[in-house]
């Protein structure tokens, strides 16, 4: 067996969701900027809060009024995907590493990381006699009900893969705060959040506490990836950058509640990785402005921004012709082309 790779383990105990995401971005940035850095696994839990995906609109996916009335913070994540509710009954991890490590792990495409890290979760469940399964693209389920979701962010030379695990989260509260698109459940046969998700604790009497699951997770992670951990707290540099990101970005309402842009035309569809919506301003069939939103999964924001910028000024036919050369997933390209064709047909 090859020598064990050393990973850094961070358990900073930060429970403020805004600061939590500031730390996430600080670690990602510094992973990219550092020449010599070993991979980091960060574990965390936050106070009850809602985290929306990078491309989501809070008013569309979250009961914002309920959250305000109940003092539940809402914060936009840096990665894509759907809105999640987190509390002391759930925990998350993030793995930060240089993309150069992917070859060492024999990973040819970052999509493979969903099953690579997913195996840790599935093996963790085996310890509790729970039969869990990957539910593509990014979920893990027990009898079709989700207890784990994951997302990714691609940042220059660095990469972060994150996952959330429900152990004994308040599902009733989750149901109250989230209003996922009906499209989300169409192909899964569920009518509500409550029917769709499950806590690990409901699945096995062997699941005692969240602390126990976290410890078991760390041990399983080490076994499956054949790594050893050194627990090292956040450095002053990391903390200072996180503090700046907290003040300049995550704690500011305008980061999460971006000003809605008016649009004239909207179309929506469901693709394999989630719901995809296009809002456009059209002038004589020419795209003046275009915004893509939804809970679909795609880790590289730059490529999506380039795609949106490239479509401006094109007419619908030109845009349809152009999309295949965009640097986004096949799934996303097909979805966008489908939506553009819809606009054409209905015009």
């Amino acid at each position, binding site marked *: 067996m090859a020598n064990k790779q050393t990973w850094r383990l961070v358990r900073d105990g930060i429970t403020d969701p805004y600061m939590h995401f500031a730390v996430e971005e600080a670690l990602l940035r510094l992973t990219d900027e550092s020449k010599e850095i070993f991979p980091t696994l960060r574990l965390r839990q936050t106070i009850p809060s809602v985290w929306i995906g990078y491309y989501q609109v809070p*008013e*569309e996916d979250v009961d914002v009024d309920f959250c305000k009335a109940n003092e539940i913070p809402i914060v936009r994540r840096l990665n894509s995907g759907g809105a999640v509710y987190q509390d002391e009954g759930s925990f998350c991890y993030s793995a930060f590493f240089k993309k150069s490590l992917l070859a060492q792990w024999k990973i040819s495409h970052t999509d493979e990381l969903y099953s690579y890290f997913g195996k840790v979760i599935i093996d963790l469940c085996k310890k509790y006699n729970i039969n869990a399964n990957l539910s593509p693209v990014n979920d893990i389920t027990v009898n079709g009900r989700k207890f784990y979701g994951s997302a990714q962010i691609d940042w220059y030379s660095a990469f972060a893969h994150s996952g959330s695990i429900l152990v004994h989260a308040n599902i009733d509260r989750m149901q109250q705060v989230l209003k996922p*698109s*009906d*499209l989300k459940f*169409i192909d899964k046969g569920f009518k509500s959040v409550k029917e769709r998700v499950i806590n690990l604790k409901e699945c096995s009497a062997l699941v005692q506490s969240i602390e126990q699951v976290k410890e078991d997770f760390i041990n399983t992670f080490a076994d499956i990836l054949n790594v050893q951990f050194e627990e090292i707290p956040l450095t002053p540099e990391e903390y200072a950058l996180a503090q700046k990101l907290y003040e300049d970005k995550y704690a500011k309402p305008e980061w999460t509640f971006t000003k809605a842009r*008016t*649009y*004239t*035309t*909207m*179309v*929506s*569809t*469901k693709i394999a990785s989630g*719901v995809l*919506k296009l809002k456009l*301003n*059209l*002038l*004589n069939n020419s795209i*003046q402005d275009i915004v893509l939103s939804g809970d679909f999964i795609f880790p590289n924001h730059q490529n999506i921004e380039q795609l949106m910028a490239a479509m401006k000024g094109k007419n619908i036919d030109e845009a349809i012709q152009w999309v295949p050369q965009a640097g986004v997933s096949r799934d996303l390209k097909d979805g966008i082309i*489908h939506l553009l*064709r*819809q*606009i054409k*047909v*209905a*015009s």
Partner: protein
Amino acid sequence: MSEEKIVRLEILVASPPTKKCKAMIAMFEKFMDEFPGQLKLDIYYAGEPMLTQPTEGFRKETGKVRKIPSAYVNGKNVASQEVPDEETVRKEIINCLKIN
């Protein structure tokens, strides 16, 4: 989902949209989630040029008097000056999908 069966939703709202207008937009956006790949939603802002071609029904209805906000499903008026009953609009959309 066939791309040949697109039902057109149109809303005429104030610019900038009032609270009532926003409620109407939110309701119609919800339909976009409910009927994926089957609807196209166009929003016209009163006093601003229409950037897409409206339906014949919309043009006829709004020829002389424009009621704001108002909503149309395949050119048929389903709401004038008030946010419509969600179920009524849903039924109209389903009807149009059947006809298409």
